[in-house]
């Protein structure tokens, strides 16, 4: 029994959590007693004896679970354990519940965990729509309603959309660039294990006195600084999700820059790799801002600092500047990896090289640069210095240009191709183009200050954000999951169920979110549990479509679970794609490649006679050394 506690794992993790939690609790109690303060402070923003253990206990769990073992041995000068790869790869399902350094295992861990939170968040959306089906309050009271939409948004953003892309890229990206793993496998594992902690803190806030955080996912001060204890759970959850995100982004950057297979220069990288390179650049520079903003709120709450209290010399609007300096780039963090997925899917299923590959890559970089200069378009009515509005409007509208380049280039890719629509992945990719165009159009309208003054903080915003985040990001996530499902599981999914899921999702998305534009422009504010009678019929319709949208996701869940277990075996390359991950078995061997492949051409050379993207192990002899490839515009 004692030996079980010495091995890294769940038992030692639980022990670490209890000890570290007790340490945090004891520290607060002791320090307060010494200072002559009342030992327990239970004003709603206080509770230091809960807030501090919320920081220490997860760290204790991570330490006990084994996330720091290797580094700690170095740090304290203990003899290091020679790497025997015992923590690498999965032989049974149990290995997915361990500290594992294999990027493929981590990828699956990410995807399954994030989809768990997708369904929890989705359930909250169903409750929200049930409440909004009729005017008046029927199911939940106004406070609970505020908690529900806040938690819904936070789960979907911080523990679904952002990390699920990290999960897909974790699995696919090293294979795509011909690398045996990520650059820092242990850091990769640590990144993953911080994620469930964030999710548990968000959901766990429902147990806090005063209920879950209810100041919206934006958590504007001073509403958030004066909110009940649940808000501190949000402040801390964001730290774990953010740290996870930053560490993963660093890992991707180093992996992409240093671990590409020989011959893969920047202009031979698949666009998914370009997309994750751009995303990671955003994450490493922007995410510290939300971490900072939430720490400042936490300090205002727990230590009585006055960052955002005007009475104490603080500045209320500055919270929004810091927050949106992250959270606007964040919408591209939630979109660029999806752009990469769509490029892979469309090129493969249209059997065509990507139209204007270089411009596609440069458009990603253009979005990265521009996205740092548009944050204040969320604040046109916020009372900030008014001169900033017009410059921010211009940059905001200009960001439509690189985005438009991507849309038109995907369409151009279809021309003179051989378009196959049997795959659900391709259906989602094509539907994404339509839905995202609508979301882009409403985005341009919102970027215009006079229109924004009218529709800001109305259901128009709710419609826009869901068109770009559900019709945009989530459609690309589904496209990616279906596309790489055979690679990840070694099984094929059921295309018939895939189609049911697709049509249910498409009609559900449009039926739910299109009418929201109308009620918003007509005068319905967002974030309200109750609304005027005149919007009753539209809201009932929206709710009906929302339930259909929810039901369609159950078809997806069933399809994934059953196909993973019983689906027909997948070949290595069922879609006849060119990129490297498809040239190995499904699922790939533990260390990906017996011999690192040699890259000799562009990634999408469909229809080019004799063109190769990569030469795999054992086939080098018969392929002559190729001429430099010509990709991009001709």
């Amino acid at each position: 029994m004692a030996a079980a506690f010495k091995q890294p794992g769940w038992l030692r993790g639980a022990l670490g959590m209890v000890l570290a939690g007790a340490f945090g609790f004891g520290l607060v109690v002791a320090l307060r007693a010494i200072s002559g303060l009342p030992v327990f402070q239970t004003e709603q923003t206080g509770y230091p004896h809960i807030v501090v253990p919320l920081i220490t206990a997860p760290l204790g769990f991570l330490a006990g679970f084994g996330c720091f073992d290797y580094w700690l041995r170095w740090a304290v000068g203990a003899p290091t354990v020679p790497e025997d790869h015992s923590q690498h790869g999965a032989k049974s399902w149990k290995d997915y519940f361990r500290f594992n350094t294999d990027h493929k295992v981590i990828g699956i861990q990410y995807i399954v965990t994030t989809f768990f939170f997708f369904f929890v968040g989705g359930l909250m959306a169903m409750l929200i729509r049930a409440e909004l089906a009729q005017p008046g309050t029927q199911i939940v009271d106004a406070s609970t309603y505020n908690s529900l939409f806040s938690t819904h948004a936070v789960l979907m953003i911080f523990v679904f959309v952002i990390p699920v892309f990290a999960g897909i890229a974790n699995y696919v990206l090293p294979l795509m660039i011909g690398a045996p793993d990520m650059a820092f496998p242990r850091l990769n594992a640590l990144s993953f294990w911080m994620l469930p902690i964030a999710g548990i803190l968000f959901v766990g806030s429902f147990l806090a006195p005063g209920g879950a955080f209810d100041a919206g996912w934006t958590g504007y001060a001073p509403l958030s600084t004066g909110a009940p204890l649940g808000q501190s759970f949000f402040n801390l959850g964001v730290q774990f999700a953010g740290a996870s995100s930053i560490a993963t982004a660093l890992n991707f950057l180093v992996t992409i820059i240093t671990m590409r297979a020989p011959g893969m220069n920047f202009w031979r990288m698949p666009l998914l790799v370009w997309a994750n390179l751009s995303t990671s650049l955003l994450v490493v520079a922007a995410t510290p801002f939300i971490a900072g903003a939430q720490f400042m709120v936490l300090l205002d709450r727990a230590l009585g600092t006055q960052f955002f209290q005007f009475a104490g010399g603080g500045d209320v609007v500055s919270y929004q500047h810091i927050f949106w300096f992250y959270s606007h780039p964040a919408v591209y963090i939630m979109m660029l990896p999806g752009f990469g997925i769509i490029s892979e899917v469309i090129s493969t299923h249209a059997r065509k090289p990507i139209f204007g590959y270089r411009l596609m890559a440069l458009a990603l970089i253009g979005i990265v640069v521009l996205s740092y200069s548009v944050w204040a378009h969320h604040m046109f009515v916020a009372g900030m210095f008014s001169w900033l509005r017009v410059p921010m409007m211009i940059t905001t509208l200009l960001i439509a240009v690189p985005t438009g380049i991507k849309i038109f280039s995907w369409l151009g890719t279809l021309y003179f191709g051989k378009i196959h629509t049997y795959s659900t992945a391709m259906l989602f990719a094509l539907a994404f183009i339509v839905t995202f165009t609508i979301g882009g159009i409403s985005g341009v309208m919102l970027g215009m200050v006079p229109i924004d003054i009218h529709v800001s903080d109305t259901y128009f915003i709710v419609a826009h954000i869901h068109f770009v985040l559900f019709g945009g990001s989530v459609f690309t996530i589904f496209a990616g999951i279906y596309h790489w499902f055979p690679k990840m599981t070694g099984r094929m999914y059921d295309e018939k169920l895939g189609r049911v899921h697709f049509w249910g999702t498409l009609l559900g998305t449009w039926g739910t979110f299109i009418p929201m534009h109308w009620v918003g422009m007509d005068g319905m504010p967002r974030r309200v549990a109750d609304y005027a009678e005149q919007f009753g019929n539209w809201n009932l319709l929206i709710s009906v479509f929302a339930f259909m949208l929810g039901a369609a996701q159950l078809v997806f869940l069933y399809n994934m679970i059953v196909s993973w277990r019983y689906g027909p075996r997948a070949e290595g390359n069922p879609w006849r794609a060119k990129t490297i991950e498809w040239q190995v078995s499904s699922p790939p061997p533990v260390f990906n490649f017996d011999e690192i492949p040699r890259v000799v051409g562009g990634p999408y050379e469909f229809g080019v006679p004799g063109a190769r993207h990569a030469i795999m192990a054992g086939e080098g002899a018969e392929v002559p050394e190729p001429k430099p490839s010509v990709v991009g515009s001709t």
Partner: protein
Amino acid sequence: MIGRLPIAKMLAVTVALTAAISAVMLQIHWDGQQGSTAAPKIDHLLDVMIVLSSFVFALVMVMLFYALWKFKAKPGDESDGEPIHGNTRLEVAWTLIPTIIVLFGAGYSWKVLDDIEEPAANPLKVQVFSQQYAWSFGYPGKGEAWSQGELHVPLNRQVHFKMHAQDVIHSFWVPEWRIKKDNVPGITTTAIVTPDRLGTYQLICTELCGFGHATMRAKVVVEPAPQFREWVAGLRERVPAPLMESVIQDTEVNPIPVGAGGA
């Protein structure tokens, strides 16, 4: 490559589809009733955007569905498409044309913004006080006359609302006026409105401010100037001292409009 496509027909369908979508979309008054001088300007900008957006949407639809109709693989066809890697002219076109469209949109928006915020001579100054979950208003004359939960303004005279939040951020929105502005603790924010339609409207809080957010409303009455003067004269209460204090201590943001040389 482009020569092999029926470009003229595709463009014709795009234009026809644009016209059809715009014709339907422009029939509907999306933003509801117009109640201020700013409303027709903002709605006109929206209409222009609807036509431009219809064109973009129609273009994408025509491009997508033509490709799906023309280039769909026959069952069993395992061959690849043509190895076309791009077309510099097309790529330049779909970079430059959207740039021109959005810059036009930005310029037009800027003009509308300047128009609707143009200060007029002799405006009426009304203090707006917001707190969880109620609105109240201060009028010049007799010290500051105070009205709780009911806002009256005269017809066709520019009103400068000076807003003061007492606790958290609230936001002032009368949909018929198309004007919205956050009330922020510690600063005075300003909204400029010239109501030009008589009637009773609703003031809606649009910034999440707590559990009572959905019910934080006030009645708005736009009436002819004589009735308005009478109504103000009939107000018995004065603005309470704590609220007056926020008027004095709140910092004014942007006291000078940008056009007048301030920044």
